[in-house]
């Protein structure tokens, strides 16, 4: 697709019911009140020269190119900083303005290198464009005057360079860092001609910069430029697609030159991100073409054998015959599949279809099991649907934000930027987290309350918050009466009013002082709009589901569901967790969250698929592992998940995998799980295929093929191959046809099609006859289940307790630059920021153990032991240690246990009793694992290069 031009309105477009009408260059122009003249003109096709203005940030008024004349006003005001007013008569092109603009450009060019032809931004440079637009022909100052010193280019950032000799000091980068990203890592130092963009540090890498790319995006010259552009040249084509990292689901323009991806530029019209990005989505795509990619199918009889490269057909045939053999030998229930939250909706739909229709059982599960399954359960029970209530944009109208068990600046950075913007505007923030995350206090952000609870006590905390609401008369009674199931409310209110839920009573459990908790509860309950955002710190607990219901109760009791600015909102971990769940990836339900026992639903699918379907729920992932060890489960098709690394209690998972007879892994790389696999099917990255992802706000966005699949087939085509080999050919020429089938079979997706997606950009489900353009906010007039249902949420302490042997509690999380188990990011220069997992330990605990910062320590639980380096930090409270789980060699899940959420079996990752001691060497497990890794990954190449 040729490179389409993205309109830059110069100043942000405003939303207002009031409009003003003015005349610009003789044309009547009507715009929302508050729109600057510059944007008013551009939105009507009138282009006024500009350099410091861009619609991603507020007007600044520094370049003085966008000057206009307004009848009846003196002088030549800047159109970017002058709001359009009713009756104004504006002239944008006069002889006087032309002379001024030329004069300004003459000054700019007098302080700029004249190397356009060899400049990496040649053809993509606004300064160059403007010199042309104003007709600059001569720089009468000559080139011998004072200029910006030509200091060495700052190339410290792995992805972009900073060349200050090309800087025009428009401050777009500085403003983007502040206004869009909210990091404030850039500034101008000095003043006058000495003014210089600076990180205030030695270089970009050592600065506060989080490499989100907003500055690069904002730069109108080659000052901040992607290294990939410098290397490959200006892109010539662009494809709009959706990021495959976190659940924010940012929209990107993947810009290419020939078959080469040159850069990823956040797409301004993408509704999830509105032109913003983070270091992962924008820059960390190099894994897609990493030499570690496996591009040929492989099989082996035993895991002790080396891999043998085979043709696709042979791989399909081998896998199919093994699955059929196992089913014949051990029964229909002995095989299953795992869909991937990394893959498209269409692909997950096909895998669950394959399990249900071809394997003939419901043994299909998804990695959402280990992250947000409690969200599905809890919100379904209370609201009636397994999804968050809001769109991201809604946060801009929240007055109080209750953030529980989520660390958005690291894990959902683009949403975090929206949240921070709102906080800077004055919204108040309550953070409930054992650890002092950045949002508790970071430049220009200060939480009103940090409820630093002990890991594992979420439900006691939410009950205490609710107790304050109920006992202090803060219930929104009109709302509850009108919108909720009154009997359930009354039962809940009686339950929660019990003194054992009072903050004073629960303080001993949670460690949160009663006064602080009461203040937080009042702040939340009395806000005009209060919104809850949460993450895996809520779900990955033995009471994950209870906690989700507890939050739903609190939101309903305070009337905070069903309009903009409020709600209960999960921040989904992976790009398509929501979608994978929507698509029927769970063993108990079909797409659209309909139970397998529902005859009517089954009938729909039986009709469509032409087979009889099982009516009993199948196995969840942890149950599969258990049943494998019990000898009942023997064959597994895993699409894009690495359970040997990502699931808890690694040694238990490996025991399960090792007990299976046919493990089929479909992935980009020979991951940890593949070490125990018999068939390897090369996967395709998101750049290599068509499809859709659904983000945390239920937004379905298109994934579009940017480059050809490295292995020849996209993931959905691989599933088709496997299905055909199993004797069930599925006929789809394109993923759009899969979506058509999903729409036919799923009421909440009935209105979704690729044509509609192309037309609207993206769609938030439900999308059907009742909501033809989708549903940004759910439960507006009534809850999906009718009346909102209050659930009783008794606090049950986890059985994972600290004691003499394991006196500390381990909790885990993500860091900005890395992603989950590192499959992708660890194969990119993002490792420059984080190349190993560190164990954060409080100075008190460290001192007791004689641990110094940077020491190697042994982290031991009843499940296993691993070693990593310690980082002494007061972000964690005494008694709590914390680490990330991004690097395979740290193997943190060797330490986590198989305890799980009572309702969904979502693992209790966030609470593990551990001991930490100094050590000199890797743990036994690490040594053994390292020793076996190469052995289990041997490949015997039989096919010549280029075949297959």
């Amino acid at each position, binding site marked *: 697709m040729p490179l389409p031009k993205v309109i830059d309105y110069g100043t942000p477009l405003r939303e207002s019911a009031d409009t003003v009408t003015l005349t610009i260059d003789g044309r009547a122009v009507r715009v929302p009140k508050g729109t600057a003249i510059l944007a008013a003109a551009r939105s009507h096709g009138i282009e006024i020269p500009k350099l410091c203005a861009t619609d991603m940030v507020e007007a600044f008024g520094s370049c003085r190119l966008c000057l206009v004349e307004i009848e009846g006003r003196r002088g030549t005001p800047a159109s970017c900083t002058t709001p359009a007013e009713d009756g104004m008569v504006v002239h944008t092109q006069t002889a006087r303005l032309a002379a001024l603009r030329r004069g300004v450009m003459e000054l700019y060019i007098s302080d700029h290198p004249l190397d356009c032809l060899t400049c990496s931004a040649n053809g993509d440079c606004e300064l160059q464009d403007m010199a042309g637009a104003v007709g600059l022909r001569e720089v009468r100052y000559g080139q011998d005057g004072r200029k910006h010193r030509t200091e060495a280019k700052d190339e410290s950032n792995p992805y972009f360079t900073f060349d200050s000799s090309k800087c025009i000091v428009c401050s777009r980068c500085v403003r983007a860092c502040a206004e869009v990203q909210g990091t404030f890592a850039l500034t101008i130092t000095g003043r006058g001609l000495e003014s210089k963009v600076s990180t205030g540090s030695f270089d970009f890498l050592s600065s506060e910069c989080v490499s989100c790319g907003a500055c690069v995006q904002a730069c109108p010259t080659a000052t901040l430029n992607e290294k990939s552009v410098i290397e490959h040249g200006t892109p010539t084509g662009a494809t709009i697609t959706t990021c495959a990292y976190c659940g924010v689901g940012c929209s990107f323009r993947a810009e290419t030159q020939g078959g080469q991806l040159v850069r990823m530029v956040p797409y301004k019209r993408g509704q999830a991100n509105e032109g913003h990005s983070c270091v992962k989505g924008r820059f960390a795509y190099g894994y897609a073409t990493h030499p570690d990619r496996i591009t040929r199918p492989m099989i082996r009889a035993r895991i002790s054998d080396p891999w043998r490269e085979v043709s696709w057909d042979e791989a399909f045939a081998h896998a199919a015959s093994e699955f059929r053999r196992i089913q014949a030998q051990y029964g229909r229930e002995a095989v299953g599949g795992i869909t991937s939250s990394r893959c498209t909706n269409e692909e997950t739909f096909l895998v669950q279809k394959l399990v249900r229709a071809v394997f003939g059982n419901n043994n299909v599960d998804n990695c959402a099991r280990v992250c947000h399954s409690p969200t599905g359960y809890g919100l379904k029970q209370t609201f009636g649907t397994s999804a968050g209530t809001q769109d991201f944009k809604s946060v801009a109208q929240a007055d109080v934000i209750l953030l529980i068990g989520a660390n958005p600046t690291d894990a959902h950075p683009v949403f975090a930027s929206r949240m921070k913007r709102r906080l800077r505007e004055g919204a108040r923030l309550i953070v409930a987290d054992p650890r002092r995350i950045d949002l508790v206090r970071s430049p220009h952000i200060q939480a009103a309350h940090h409820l630093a609870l002990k890991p594992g006590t979420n439900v006691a905390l939410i009950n205490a918050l609710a107790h304050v609401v109920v006992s202090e008369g803060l219930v929104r009674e009109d709302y509850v009466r009108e919108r909720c199931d009154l009997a359930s409310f009354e039962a809940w209110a009686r*339950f929660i009013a019990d003194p054992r839920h009072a903050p004073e009573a629960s303080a001993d459990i949670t460690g949160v002082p009663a006064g602080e908790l009461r203040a937080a509860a009042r702040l939340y309950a009395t806000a005009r709009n209060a919104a809850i955002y949460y993450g895996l710190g809520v779900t990955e607990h033995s009471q994950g589901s209870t906690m989700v219901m507890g939050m739903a109760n609190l939101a309903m009791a305070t009337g905070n569901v069903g309009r903009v600015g409020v709600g209960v909102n999960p921040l989904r971990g992976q790009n398509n967790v929501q979608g994978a769940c929507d698509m029927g990836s769970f063993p108990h339900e079909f797409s659209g969250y309909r139970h397998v*026992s529902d005859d009517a639903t089954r009938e729909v699918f039986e009709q469509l698929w032409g087979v009889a379907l099982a009516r009993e729920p199948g196995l969840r992932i942890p149950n599969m592992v258990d049943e494998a060890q019990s000898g009942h489960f023997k064959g597994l098709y895993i699409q894009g998940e690495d359970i040997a690394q990502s699931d808890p209690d690694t040694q238990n998972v490996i025991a399960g995998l090792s007990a299976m007879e046919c493990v089929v892994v479909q992935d980009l790389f020979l991951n940890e799980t593949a070490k125990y696999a018999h068939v390897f099917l090369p996967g395709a990255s998101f750049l290599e295929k068509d499809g859709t992802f659904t983000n945390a706000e239920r937004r379905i966005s298109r994934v579009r093929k940017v480059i050809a699949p490295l292995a020849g087939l996209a993931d959905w085509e691989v599933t088709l191959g496997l299905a055909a080999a199993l004797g069930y050919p599925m006929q789809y020429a394109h993923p759009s046809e899969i979506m058509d089938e999903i729409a036919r079979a799923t009421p909440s997706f009935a209105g979704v099609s690729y044509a509609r997606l192309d037309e609207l950009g993206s769609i938030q489900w439900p999308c059907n006859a009742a909501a033809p353009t989708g549903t940004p906010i759910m439960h507006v007039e009534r809850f999906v289940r009718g009346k909102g249902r209050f659930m009783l949420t008794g606090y049950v302490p986890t059985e994972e307790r600290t004691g003499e042997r394991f006196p500390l509690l381990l909790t885990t999380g993500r860091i900005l630059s890395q992603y989950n188990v590192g499959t992708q990011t660890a194969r990119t220069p993002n490792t420059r920021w984080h190349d190993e997992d560190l164990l954060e330990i409080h100075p008190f605990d460290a001192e007791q153990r004689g641990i110094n910062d940077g020491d190697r320590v042994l982290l031991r639980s009843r499940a296993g032991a691993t070693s990593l380096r310690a980082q002494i930090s007061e972000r964690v409270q005494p008694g709590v240690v914390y680490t990330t789980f991004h690097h395979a060699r740290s193997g943190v899940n060797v330490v986590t246990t198989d305890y*799980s959420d009572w309702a969904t079996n979502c693992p209790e990752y966030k609470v593990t009793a551990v001991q930490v001691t100094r050590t000199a060497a890797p743990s036994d497990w690490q040594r053994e694992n390292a020793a076996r890794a190469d052995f289990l990954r041997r490949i015997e190449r039989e096919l010549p290069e280029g075949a297959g």
Partner: protein
Amino acid sequence: MKPDKLARMANDIAHNLAALGDAAPAAIAEHLRHFWTPRMRKELLQLIQAGGASLEPTVVEAARAL
């Protein structure tokens, strides 16, 4: 599935639904029907028949309804 694991899962459900009081056994039974495979339910019943000492009374009661 290993009996102790099965028992722990069932007891977890019972503990979390205990707040329902008299309604707990029915809710437990519904949960098991909704989310457990027939084999897991069968093994739970076998566990009860074998004594079920480690199981919560509400689980035992719920199992009667399966």
